[in-house]
């Protein structure tokens, strides 16, 4: 079985995000970019399946700017076998929308015929949490989101999901799209020999036109704003004063 792992190049989780002066988005010029952390977990899951013998090949795919090939090299250094880069824009500030990404991924699935897609539950830049679900709908495949444990058994997969209020185990028919949550595994860091090997692994470059997919935006970002700064607290002298302030100043009771 082949496994397809979509990975996204996002602003590094350590970087302090700055909103652009005109409010049109987040400033990404000269900012450190990395693989979306949830996608690292997805890569790790797929690579472990390969190491256990359940999977023959792991293909990483990224959609976005040309620089996403660095992200794919990271996936290859972790242990993915080959990579596909779909260059869909040359502007680092253009975010390809989930539906367009899902359509492109469907086209890649049609071409590569994997038995499983493992993806991150969401990208940490825009937190859409949509692509995996859309892809499963477009493919007509089962979906299992927010996975914290995955067991593949022949034509079924048992997935433990992180849901509000607890854990849920579901059994889904293969082929499936599984989106992974934070606690599924701890991704490995690449070793030096594997970084060197990754440089020689195949990385195919494609365009949306190759797959006949239109990636023009359907959403418009109206405004991006920094979260409001939190004011300092005050110490009240008595319960009565607290009640008074809650009632008359904060208006919460």
């Amino acid at each position, binding site marked *: 079985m082949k496994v397809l792992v979509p990975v996204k190049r996002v602003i590094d989780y350590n970087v302090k995000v700055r909103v652009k002066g005109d409010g049109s988005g987040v400033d990404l010029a*000269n900012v450190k970019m*990395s693989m979306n952390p949830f996608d690292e977990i997805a890569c790790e899951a797929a690579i472990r399946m390969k190491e256990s013998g359940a999977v023959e090949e792991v293909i990483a795919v990224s959609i976005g700017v040309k620089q996403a090939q*660095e992200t794919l*090299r*990271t996936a290859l*250094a972790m242990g993915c076998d080959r990579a596909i880069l779909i260059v869909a824009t040359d502007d680092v500030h253009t975010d390809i929308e989930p539906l367009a990404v899902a359509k492109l991924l469907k086209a890649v699935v049609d071409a590569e015929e994997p038995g499983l897609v493992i993806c991150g539950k969401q990208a940490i830049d825009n937190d859409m949490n949509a692509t995996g679900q859309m892809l499963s709908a477009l493919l007509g495949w089962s979906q299992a989101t927010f996975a914290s444990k995955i067991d593949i058994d022949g034509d079924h997969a048992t997935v433990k999901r992180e849901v509000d209020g607890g854990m849920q185990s579901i059994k889904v028919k293969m082929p499936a799209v599984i989106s992974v949550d934070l606690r599924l595994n701890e991704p490995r*860091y*690449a*070793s*030096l*020999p*594997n*970084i*060197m090997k990754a440089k020689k692994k195949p990385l195919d470059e494609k365009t949306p036109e190759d797959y006949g997919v239109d990636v023009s935006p359907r959403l418009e970002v109206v405004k991006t704003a920094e979260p409001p700064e939190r004011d300092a607290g005050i110490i009240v002298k008595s319960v009565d004063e607290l009640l008074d302030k809650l009632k008359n100043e904060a208006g919460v009771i």
Partner: protein
Amino acid sequence: MKTSAPADHDDLRDALRALCADFPAAYHRRHGADETYPEEFIDALTKAGWMAAMIPAEFGGSGLGLTEASIVMEEINRAGGNAGHCHGQMYNMSTLLRHGSEAQKKSYLPKVASGELRLQSMAVTEPTTGTDTTKLKTTAVKKGNDRYVINGQKVWISRVQHSDLMILLARTTPLSEVKRKSEGLSVFLLELAQVVGKGMEVKPIANMVGHETNELFFDDLEIPAETLIGEEGQGFRYILDGLNAERALIAAECIGDGYWFVEKASRYANERQVFGRPIGQNQGIQFPIARAFVNVEAANLMRFEACRRFDAGEPAGAQANMAKLLAADASWEAANACLQTFGGFGFAEEYDVERKFRETRLYQVAPISTNLILSYVAEHILDMPRSF
């Protein structure tokens, strides 16, 4: 913090930073205070292939150059660690690699690459012979066809207790019988398990930075003749290659330290409030940090030039020495600016500034003192008379 370093090696840096992040400041602080060797950290670096960066692929390494090796050292120090615990392997490697026989390389390099053996120690310096290497008094006298007998003493020989192999420089032909004083010295590769307690004694030296370093005493130590590296009498030349590599690596460590100090100082200057505003708002605080950063950046350019020349097989002695001087000065300046910014808190162990301060101070002295680099530059680059 954005630096001027080329982005070519960002993939290596990312992976190294991820590894180093598993060993936070508290880990290095504990090993510093207890004067113990950071085994787990060195093992993790070895397992992930970093200590074998320069070993050719055919022997199980990654076949990279000094540039990449120096990035490993820089990132260790930049992450708050001390590459002094493991840098020996990188430069000792080049002696074995460039001058060892096929048989020696085949028998040792794969094991060094896999981490089964460590090649961390080099015994050159003697109590009465520092930089004046050709005057060293340790002798290796041929006995029959298949043995050498070693007598003498070495000092400041680091990592011997945490290494399996050691490179030894000894005189095989007396100084009075050679045409040039740099001749008559030979390099041997010793397996430490075969010699410690059997003619070689190790006496640890307690010191300021908790670095594992020792005195060695050789008393009729017999070693097999096949431990000789290259030709008898040509050892000084073989060691020099390693020394240039060592200087560039140390420069990279200083640069890692320098960035660590600048980052630490500027963050603290932003956070620490006195008289209702961050202390970093005072030019008296920010200018020394800014200047230190400028000097670390400048030193970094010379470090990359030294590495480039070394990797291209061009003469790199001048650049390696100058990079070491610039980088050691820059890291020491950054250390002072950082300690001053922290004020009294800089002396508290929990901020790591005092530990890094002591560690980076060493590089004004070792592996070659700043004055001797100036002498080298004056004599060999500017054609002025030799001053000693």
